């Protein structure tokens, strides 16, 4: 198992003050599959002990995988404010 957060320490981000993706946690609590936990390539979604998830936007790579796999309609998905978020250097 890789610790992806160590990888992402090398990335350059400019953080917005608020999250660009708004998660309706109420809907996540009723989600049996919670595919976002493993599908997100930056591990932005972490499990809550019983059910539900917590989303941390800081390491988000803005790929949109959560947006296309979430079938609970739990995400209000937007790009970050201009200039904010990930800034690649070698991609």
């Amino acid at each position, binding site marked *: 198992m890789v610790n992806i957060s160590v990888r992402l320490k090398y990335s350059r981000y400019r953080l917005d003050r608020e999250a660009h993706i708004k998660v309706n946690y109420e809907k996540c609590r009723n989600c049996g599959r919670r595919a976002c936990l493993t*599908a997100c390539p930056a591990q932005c979604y972490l499990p809550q002990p019983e059910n539900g998830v917590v989303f941390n936007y800081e390491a988000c790579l803005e790929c949109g995988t959560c947006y*296309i796999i979430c079938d609970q309609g739990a995400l209000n998905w937007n790009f970050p404010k201009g200039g904010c978020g990930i800034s690649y250097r070698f991609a």
Partner: protein
Amino acid sequence: MSSNTFDVIIVGAGPAGTTAALILARKGLKVILIERGEFPGAKNMFGGALFGRVLDEIIPEYWAKAPVERFINRKIITLLAEDSAVSLDFNSAAFKQAPYNGFVVMRTRFDRWYAVEAVKAGAVLLTQTTVDDVIREGNQVVGVVARRAQGELRAKVVIAADGALSFLAQKAGLRKDFTPEQFSLGVKEVIQLPPGALEERFGLTGDEGLSNEYLGRMGDGLHGGAFLYTNKDSLSIGVVAQAHSLKEKQVTIYDALEKFKRHPAVAPLLEGGRFLEYSAHLIPEAGANMIPRLYTGGMLVTGNAAGLVLVGGVFLEGVNCAIASGRIAAETVLQAFEKGIFDKRAMAEYEARLKASFVLRDINRYKSAIPLLMNKRLYEVYPSFACRTLENWFTVDGTGHPKLAGMVKGLLGEDVGLWQLAGDGYQMGRALLW
């Protein structure tokens, strides 16, 4: 004209948007190119290959000016099993010569350079600006709303080049909601190698370079593949996984990448390397099955935003399709300006021209590759089947070599029956051969 009014607004400074901006600015139109990243390319990522013949027509001998890493003269396709691999290794002298078949590039450098070319031609580049919506008057798109003070910008035509997730096409009512089956997720690491290691390990001299695409089961069951590209003195290495399998298998793509890096055929290539950066991006992979309505009054959709990626199994091409679509969009807009008509009928010319170009011709020609790529045996059975067959055949252990057909028959039945093999062979043939 006020400062918030333009001839053309282009959203997204990737290859599609920048191409359109460059061509329109050259013709003297008042063009604004809007990019949400800190600079053009800051949000962009791909495996590594730019097939630039289409760019050569726009910027002759672009390779002498653009930040390219290496030309690609060697293309390797590998079937990957658990601890073995079988490859087709193509090496071409023609690909080493101008106008070159393709180059490895980094998008952070290439897209930035390309946008500066558009600015030199007269386009206005507005970075760090996210566009949230289109402005409509009746059936006509007449501008966009940017997320900033006085964010309403108006133009005769809006070109959406806002990438794989195109919210602009959605806001304009041109595309349906996405499904996981339409996308793959790609992740990539760039790894710096010790001086001289790249040339030695891959047998490269000068600016020679290679691409290696791998087909197989990734990690613990993801459907997709992997890739490796040679940069100047680093490697780009990554994994691509179909989003539906990410959803179903509950396997992470970064664990799959780590496993790929440990594969005995791959690990020695990375020895002594220093990790530089990890990146991720979605790839629209449903070809003809996901192309939105490409135009409406006052608006055109280009590049990844229009799902214009050639998915042909052995081909996965996006940037050349993006450049071509940006160019065709620009030509359509120029014609509209000549006539002074920007309605839906005038914009329809874009689709007609795309259909006549290699972009939609290839995407349609290879559309039977899409169901093939959704065939799970392509990942779960055949790569290991091929490797096991060859391993048995090549083994010299004093028991003798059976003939190949007998051996294949012996392995059949374990994972796949004869009829299934024939059916899949036919599907593969339809996808690629005829």
